[in-house]
């Protein structure tokens, strides 16, 4: 069993399966997208079982759609429950987003992380859905803040307050993605994006953050895209360090999902995250 000196993990992605399992570098955990392992059987699931023999596994969902006012998909919940039973994960998480909504011929799933409004009714929807999942899985969830490319004029609750109240109401924790904070600050045209992100972190209660995410973003003409396709930016590392000072040594995950680099490059990012743990 490998265990890193620090609680730092990487996203386990297909191009690295063989090398990671052959070399088992020291890591605190690996994280996978739950939905990629929803199949009844097959090679991917076998790889995850192998990985589980070497590392704690964090199941990070992209499809529960916890903010959907149309409610949760029982099909999804059944498969997540089965995967949790199979893998006995270290943590289970998903996003503060919606994806399910009624279309012309029934409810569709957008398979994307679509933004929710920060309103009282949206908080009630999120809390009910989060509680339903936690009751079913009999374990707390971590909920990740989004990078959002559009937002709503009638937001009535600040985002840090929204998460603080969600955590208080349901017992869930926050998976704080500091790269998403930076992407949102840049897209909002904040005059001092780093300061705006620090203020977000400082507005969160201590004790609710269960994991941090860092990743790379890209600038695409008039918008910043959270593409997880490059090195973590220096300002995002600075935010990660700021969050670790405020919340203590919570686990950190390095995400790299597009243009996935050589494993060594990703491990280099993980080593940098470990150095911030001190």
């Amino acid at each position: 069993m490998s265990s890193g000196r620090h609680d730092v993990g990487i996203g386990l992605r297909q191009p690295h399966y063989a090398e990671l399992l052959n070399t088992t570098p020291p890591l605190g955990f690996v994280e996978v997208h739950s939905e990629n392992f929803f199949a009844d059987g097959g090679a991917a699931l076998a790889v995850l079982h192998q990985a589980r023999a070497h590392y704690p596994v964090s199941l990070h969902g992209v499809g529960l759609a916890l903010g959907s006012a149309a409610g949760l998909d029982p099909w999804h919940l059944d498969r997540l429950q089965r995967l949790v039973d199979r893998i006995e994960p270290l943590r289970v998480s998903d996003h503060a987003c919606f994806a399910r909504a009624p279309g012309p011929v029934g409810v569709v799933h957008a398979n994307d992380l679509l933004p929710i409004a920060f309103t009282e009714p949206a908080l009630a929807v999120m809390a009910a859905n989060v509680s339903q999942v936690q009751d079913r899985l009999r374990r707390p969830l971590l909920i990740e803040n989004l990078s959002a490319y559009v937002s709503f004029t009638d937001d009535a609750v600040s985002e840090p307050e929204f998460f603080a109240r969600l955590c208080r109401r349901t017992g869930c924790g926050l998976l704080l993605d500091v790269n998403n904070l930076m992407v949102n600050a840049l897209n909002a045209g904040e005059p001092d994006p780093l300061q705006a992100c620090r203020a977000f972190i400082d507005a969160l209660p201590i004790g609710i953050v269960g994991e941090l995410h860092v990743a790379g973003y890209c600038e695409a003409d008039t918008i910043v895209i959270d593409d997880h396709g490059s090195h973590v930016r220096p300002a995002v590392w600075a935010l990660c360090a700021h969050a670790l000072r405020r919340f203590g040594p919570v686990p950190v995950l390095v995400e790299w999902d597009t243009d996935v680099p050589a494993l060594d490059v990703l491990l280099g990012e993980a080593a940098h995250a470990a150095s911030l743990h001190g």
Partner: protein
Amino acid sequence: MDELQRQQDLLRALSGGAIAGLREQGARAARGLEAYRANAEAGAERALAAAFATVQALVGADDFRRLAREFWHAHPPRHGDLGDWGEAFPAWLAAHAALAPWPYLGDSARLDFALHRSERAADAVLDAASLSLLESTDPSRLRMVLMPGTALIRSRWPIVGIHRAHQLAGEAAEHAFAEVREAIERSRGEDALVVRDGWRAVVVPLPPADARWTESLLAGAALADSLEHAGADFDFAAWLASAIRQAWLKGVLAIHD
């Protein structure tokens, strides 16, 4: 504002509908929505390309991308696992007016999806002890159960040849494509068995009697009825040996009233 309505509006806006109440204005709002739209369409393309490799090779990457986007809007996913999405793609391709010059595309897509499904099917091993039922029980009271993910695609087009030609390269591929073109001209149909070979799903061409037999087994018929359906040409002993050796058979099941 009603959250369900808001979410429905945003989803509709991603297909070109209007939406009010966004903080972003004008071009910036449009660019934000475009980021989501592009992500969804890229996801659709990736998911369908993973499941329909032969179709992608047949129509080419650019047309496949356009078809994937069109299908996404025509048959949006119902669930949050794109690996499970695309069952309606073969029939949609077969009915697509612009694809009429490729009448075998729908069946090639069915074969692709059967392979994709097979590789996601439950892992299983032969229940060897159940084979003793073949000696102790009347064939009208038995069923042969094939491995999870096994499928049979019967086509009036040479779908096995088409699939195989796309797995080859160089001279072998040229030769295989020449054979396929001839088979298409003569409308020579093929029956394809899809089974797992380890983690990979593979295509096995079946002679007509074996295809009738497999069809009957997959429909859940009793052994005696399947033998009758297969006809006199079918060699059960040879099939059984092969099915055990190649791990097609999961076991034999007694039928209870």
